[in-house]
């Protein structure tokens, strides 16, 4: 488990202020990729520079994402990033892609809506541990059991960064933060949530952990997540240098899943998920009909019987419409 240095004092506002000049001189829009020219990682760079603190793990996640999209040659206009609120939820602005920066905790249900509306396009939800595991925990469980074909990349720093250093649902037991100043041995009740285990028991069909310090592995995991035929949950250990620096602990403890790990074995996956906080790799993988496919099957059934009832009446009514 992580060592728990006391939260450092706020060094900087976590990226709120943008200059007034932004109104007058908008940042140049990214170039539209030309047909036939392969896309490079830089083609996915967004219009805004990231507002993260220097050294934030999220920079590496951003780089890995841009590399992954380039490797997959997915056109920027075919990809949508959906996020909630938090430092990492600013992610969509730093990508050249479609984006939806929604409200706190609701990235997954928004992402599901986008995906169902356009099943042929790539939808990636992004955000932090507070957004996903606290206010969004209900959606985390239900999205997993529904198994939509979307990827969810949760950047976990075990702290609230944007609000400057309060406890998160993944904060280690006993961690002293601004909102848990008296925490410590025998004085902390809140057990941290285990996101991987929760994802597996909730029905996620692809569950993995990456680390921002290992960009190459992370890039591969992101690619697998995007290509997975169902709901892919990727937790990324992405340390916060300002409020809860766990780089040293990560460096000391970080390793990959044993090569013998069988990701098709749910019990083995649960065991691995419950054993080690720092291990990276694909913990679990299963193939199950995704939500969109189930809905398509229902539609096929329903349309085969012809349009009747209110649906038929609505067509009759719509036919009377004149401008």
């Amino acid at each position, binding site marked *: 488990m992580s060592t728990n240095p006391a939260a450092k004092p706020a060094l900087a506002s976590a990226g*709120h*202020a*943008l200059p007034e000049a*932004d*109104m007058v001189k*908008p940042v140049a*829009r*990214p170039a*539209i990729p030309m047909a036939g020219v392969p896309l490079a990682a830089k083609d996915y760079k967004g219009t*805004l520079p990231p507002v993260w603190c220097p050294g934030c793990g999220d920079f590496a996640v951003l780089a890995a994402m841009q590399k992954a999209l380039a490797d997959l040659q997915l*056109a920027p*206009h*075919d990809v*949508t*990033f*959906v996020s909630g609120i938090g430092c990492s939820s600013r992610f969509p*602005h730093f990508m*050249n*892609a*479609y*984006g*939806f*920066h*929604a*409200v706190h*905790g*609701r990235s997954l*249900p*928004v*992402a599901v*809506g*986008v*995906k*169902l*509306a*356009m099943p042929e*396009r790539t939808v990636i939800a992004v955000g932090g541990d507070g957004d996903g595991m606290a206010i969004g925990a*209900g*959606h985390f*469980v*239900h999205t997993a059991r529904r198994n939509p074909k979307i990827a969810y990349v949760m950047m976990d720093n075990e702290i609230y960064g944007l609000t400057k250093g309060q406890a998160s649902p993944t904060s280690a037991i006993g961690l002293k933060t601004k909102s848990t100043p008296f925490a410590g041995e025998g004085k902390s009740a809140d057990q941290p949530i285990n996101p991987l285990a929760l994802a597996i028991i909730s029905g996620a069909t692809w569950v993995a952990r990456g680390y921002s310090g290992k960009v190459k592995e992370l890039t591969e995991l992101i690619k697998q997540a995007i290509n997975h035929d169902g709901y892919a949950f990727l937790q990324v250990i992405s340390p916060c240098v300002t409020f809860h620096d766990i780089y040293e602990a990560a460096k000391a403890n970080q390793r990959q899943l044993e090569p013998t790990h069988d990701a098709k074995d749910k019990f083995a996956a649960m065991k691995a998920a419950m054993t080690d906080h720092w291990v990276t790799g694909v913990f679990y993988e299963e193939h199950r009909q995704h939500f969109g496919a189930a*809905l398509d099957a229902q*539609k096929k059934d*329903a*349309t085969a*019987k012809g*349009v*009747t*009832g*209110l*649906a038929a*009446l*609505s*067509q009759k*009514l*719509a036919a*009377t*419409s*004149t*401008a």
Partner: protein
Amino acid sequence: MASTTFRFAGESGEGVISAGEIACLALSDIGFNVFTFESYPAEIKGGHCWYQVRSSDDELASAGVGVDLLCAFNQEAIDLHAKVVSPGGVIVYDPGQVTVPPTRTDVRLLAIPFDELVKTQVQSAKSKNVFAVATVAALSGIPAAEVKKTMQKKYKGKKAELLALNDKAIDAAYAHIVTNNIPPLTTMKIGHHAEERTLINGNDAIALGALAAGCDFFAGYPITPASSILEGLSVEMPKLGHVCMQAEDEMSSLAHCLGASYAGKKSATATSGPGFSLMQELLGLASTAELPVVIINCMRGGPSTGLPTKPEQSDLNEMVYGSHGEASRIVMAPAGVRDSIIQTVWAFNLAEKYQVPVIIATDHSLSNRTENIILPSLKGTPIVRRKLATEADLVDYKRYKFTPDGVSPQAIPGMVGGTHTAEGLEHNEYGNPNYTGSNHEAMIKKRLHKIDDAWKYPAALETFGDQNPDVLVVTWGSTKGPVKEAVLAALQEGKKVGYVVPKILNPLPETGFLDLIQKAPQVIVAEMNHTGQLEGLLRKRVTRDFIRLNKVHGTPLTWLEIKEKIDGALAGKIKATATHSSLKQEMTA
């Protein structure tokens, strides 16, 4: 107007509601206009429930006052409803269940042992509802064949044994009336409607309007009295290739809709007070991210869990002002079942046109009531599709571009050059976060004022009665029904009265509404809430006094209550209240 009202009352689970539904269907089939009202407990098993059908040759606008024939399944039904039976009316009751029959001498009492007869003659306890409704039909002079026809239509496709059992129950009921020489109490005229009628309730009417308007994405979470919209669309939308899904909560419902709307779908959700409260933050997001969405709020008694199965119009302030900050939204309120279709089509049209959330307010009484309506035509009503980004827009694409009408063309995923981030943070024209004062003020104005003229659509107002009334009644939503009947009654007495009903409550109509209210000598505002919420909105826009008519009784206002207020105002007995803040004195008086 001449009408006959039938009421079935008893214990929930005894088939009371289905008896009422059969009666409604039968009356519609033989050519009457029907208007139902139902009341049931919030619990699944047990509790008192009742279902009433009012029938007339004339168009009906409300549930009316009084009952002509009460069919009481048990003692509680007698205790609760015997007193509302009109003088000269009839009470049919089961003497096996009713130990203390009503003592009224001005109504006719008929003891018919339903339970016993069903047991001995039909040998099926489940047929009690059919037996009861057939008894009522026999007493009304409706031939058994008509009832059988209706039953066959209602249970079309069901097992032959069930259909045979229904016929057996109907025959037994008629036989009892004949054997005991009970003469028909009246002879309902058997006829046909001149025009094709559609038997439909308020929630189905909204679902129908939504589908006609092109709604192709729906997400909802079960809640009384909105669930039947989710249920109905779950059946209907897959037939059209659309998505209808049940979400894990109301936040998720609206979030799904916003995601789908971002991707170009005409999306909608339906809920009631508690769910609508949960949606407030996402309502603000829809407004700020400028995403069209339709939110149907089937109001019930509040606050908190309140009265889940009773009507109330107490969410108006929340619909108009809810969500933090100054978030733009359109609020609409259909005033009847047929109007629910029309206003829902317009709700989608306005949502698309202005890229704004539109809330449709209905209530328990309107959601659940059935009428046999003449389907409206959409002649003159376009099906509007939002302004999408053109190739020219995509050269230097600004999602939140300042435009003369305040509406910015939307790019949807897949459009090359349209990449942008939909934002709930304050943002500049590109959608980039921006907190400068000048930008915030410009964006607030853009979003709030783009809808200024939204009330100028053809179906926004309903005006009726005298052109220059001495008393003008203003109301909204389902309360229009009893207001209409009260005004009709007053007009028949030669009084100079009228009403005006806005179907859009934010922004409020100006010409033809606020000007009428400003100039009328006396104005009554009738609504099913305690604090006068529409009145409060009017007081912000016109300078005048109002006569308040408020009721939070779990039942709609009746035309008689409104007529009394009109008469009192005309006679100078009821005075207008000068300020909204004098509410306390008046209410505690």
